[in-house]
């Protein structure tokens, strides 16, 4: 009705609010990709020889590969020679303390609500912030050090802990894994590194915040988390990018290694710029995330809330190698306007009695296209493996789409697998019911969507769950009415 529509229209006009650009001088390498660029990046980062060799192997392999085409998304051809593969705020090659960080950049993070400063850090989140290609500051490091926990930028880990890096880098996602992972291996510029020693339970949530600032820059970060025997860590990842008319490429790799009895909980709220209402601009998000439950009784849990990006291509997966290991995947993926998402997981059961759970919630609004693609694979030796999968899709409006591609491959007859799927539509009846009880149309949509996502949100750490709910609300603005 008249009053309601006006309010809705006003909220539609409220745009992507993380779309500001920070004015800092940047130092970039020339556009395009070649062996020289790979060498240049490695040299800029002053890397040991093993890193350079690894990058070069990856680059040479990448040149033999072609971009995958099996995914259910459409996008203009990416010109890999028109991308800047390294960009660092000038003078930022190596900040020693917070005071050396460019005030403009610190303002950016303040706008984003990232607690960089010491007093805010007491809130209990240790943050590693990656700005374009360089890690800006890692907070709370001293406190963690006492426990033997290493939490630092990837570049720093290469310098300070080359042994650990060499041992685990590429051990879960090899440089040959796929087109985007190979590209990342060749050119990745920074990221986060976490090592939790034996028997240590990390006392706080560790967090990385990624932001793409410079134009025409790709972001290729790499995260490596190792939880040693009986260790525990919960890790949060958040992302934003400024509004730009052209598309920007984000090709990240995350590797998790859980040794005996270790647990890793990895939560993502992805809010990269999704493009405008006509589908112009936005981030192409091609990400490889995989965890290996290498030791017996270890557990890896992925929780993702994907609301941003023009294209999302990501399948956080678990290799359940040890006996009695547990893999979990909880996902909310929302596509509005012209966003496209092809996301899901792979659960590879190798160890005996390995268990996996997949809960996927896809929400499509506007012209959004949402695909769940998942694989459950039970190998010969995985006696007593169990999987439960549930894939639900929610449609808002009649121009969007939801697709489900579950693949199941079982080579052991003792395995037990369950799969449930549903597709529903936010009905006028549901909206009217809520509005009759006093909720505005927007609040009613949010309520219904949040109800739909409840099983995933309850897996998120508290503050993240609140943020995720708000984000979903903002991302859905104007989707009904």
């Amino acid at each position: 009705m008249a009053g309601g529509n006006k309010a809705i229209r006003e909220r539609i006009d409220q745009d992507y609010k993380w779309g500001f650009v920070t004015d800092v001088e940047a130092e970039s390498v020339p556009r395009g990709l070649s062996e020289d660029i790979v060498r240049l990046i490695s040299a800029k980062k002053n890397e040991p020889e093993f890193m350079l060799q690894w990058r070069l192997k990856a680059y040479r392999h990448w040149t033999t590969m072609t971009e995958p085409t099996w995914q259910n998304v459409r996008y203009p051809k990416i010109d890999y020679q028109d991308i800047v593969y390294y960009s660092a705020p000038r003078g930022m090659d190596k900040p020693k303390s917070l005071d050396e960080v460019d005030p403009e950049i610190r303002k950016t993070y303040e706008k984003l609500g990232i607690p960089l400063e010491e007093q805010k850090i007491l809130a209990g989140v240790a943050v590693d912030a990656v700005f374009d290609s360089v890690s800006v500051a890692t907070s709370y490091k001293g406190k963690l050090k006492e426990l033997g926990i290493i939490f630092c930028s990837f570049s720093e880990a290469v310098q300070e802990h080359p042994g650990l890096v060499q041992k685990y880098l590429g051990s879960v996602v090899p440089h040959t894994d796929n087109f985007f992972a190979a590209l990342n291996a060749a050119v990745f510029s920074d990221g986060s590194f976490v090592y939790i020693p034996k028997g240590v339970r990390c006392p706080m949530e560790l967090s990385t915040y990624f932001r793409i600032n410079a134009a025409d820059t790709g972001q290729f970060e790499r995260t490596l988390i190792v939880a040693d025997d009986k260790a525990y860590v919960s890790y949060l990842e958040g992302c934003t990018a400024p509004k730009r008319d052209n598309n920007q490429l984000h090709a990240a790799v995350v590797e998790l290694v859980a040794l005996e009895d270790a647990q890793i909980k990895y939560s993502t709220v992805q809010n990269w710029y999704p493009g405008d209402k006509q589908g112009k601009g936005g981030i192409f998000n091609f990400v490889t995330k995989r965890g290996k439950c290498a030791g017996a009784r270890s557990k890896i849990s992925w929780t993702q809330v994907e609301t941003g990006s023009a294209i999302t291509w990501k399948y956080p997966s678990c290799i359940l190698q040890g006996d009695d290991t547990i893999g979990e995947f909880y996902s909310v993926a929302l596509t509005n306007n012209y966003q496209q998402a092809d996301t899901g997981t792979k659960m590879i059961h190798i160890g005996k009695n390995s268990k996996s759970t997949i809960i996927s919630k896809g929400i499509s609004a506007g012209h959004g296209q949402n695909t769940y693609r998942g694989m459950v694979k039970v190998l010969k030796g995985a006696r007593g493996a169990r999987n439960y999968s549930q894939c639900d899709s929610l449609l808002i409006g009649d121009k969007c789409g939801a697709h489900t591609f579950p693949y199941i491959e079982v080579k052991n007859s003792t395995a037990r697998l369950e799969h449930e799927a549903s597709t529903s539509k936010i009905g006028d009846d549901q909206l009217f019911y809520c509005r009759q009880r006093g909720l505005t149309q927007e609040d009613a949509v949010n309520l219904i969507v949040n109800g739909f996502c409840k099983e995933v949100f309850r897996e998120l750490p508290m503050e993240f769950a609140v943020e995720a709910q708000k984000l979903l609300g903002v991302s859905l603005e104007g989707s009904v009415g």
Partner: protein
Amino acid sequence: MLEIRDLHANAGGKEILRGINLSVRPGEVHAIMGPNGSGKSTLANVLAGREAVEVTRGEVLYRGRNLLALSPEERAWEGIFLAFQYPVEIPGVSTLYLLKAGVNAIRKHRGEPEFDAIEFMALVKEKLKLVEMDPAFLNRSVNEGFSGGEKKRNEILQMAVLDPALAILDETDSGLDIDALRVVANGVNALRDGRRSMLVITHYQRLLNYIVPDKVHVLSQGRIALSGDRTLALDLEKKGYAWVENHDGGDRATAP
């Protein structure tokens, strides 16, 4: 309280209401009866603001204001409540959460402070007794997996909590066994306080043995064909709706 004048409305491309006139004063309980397809539910939907129903002529004044200019939520804020004939399911949203959001939206509109979780729980627990419901209901998803009787009791619970000035009960008795009917009727009667007005829409006179109306109207082909006191409902039960249709012969001639 409510003044309906010459109300015409279309639903699904067909004219369903063809000139309704009705006046309800504060505290009065009116029963609206009529055969299937006579326009009972359409009337309820027009009053609650469902957009699928299009008003083509006439006006509705609620407390002296033009009701038809308000959105469904604005009507709720102003004290209009509809107990749905078919309450909808909302997976993952607890009844408690939905109700709290509704109550606080209404309180905010009235300039009253919002209830916190503890105050709200106390209020709801008290109202639960009215409809003899287990508190466990509150944490279940709205109407999901509820039996027919549970859904209707849930509607009456919501009415009790939202405390409307005008409550419209759309076939709240349909699908209820005799015990559930008694519980629902007791709940409704407890909410008759001499100020709250109610429109009780029903197909059967049975409900009116429990909820005794001040007035009874019989809808036929989109118009009020007969009005009277509760004895009209009893007559109707004896003689059937065909008796009303005969009364209404002139109108039928004008039907397309």
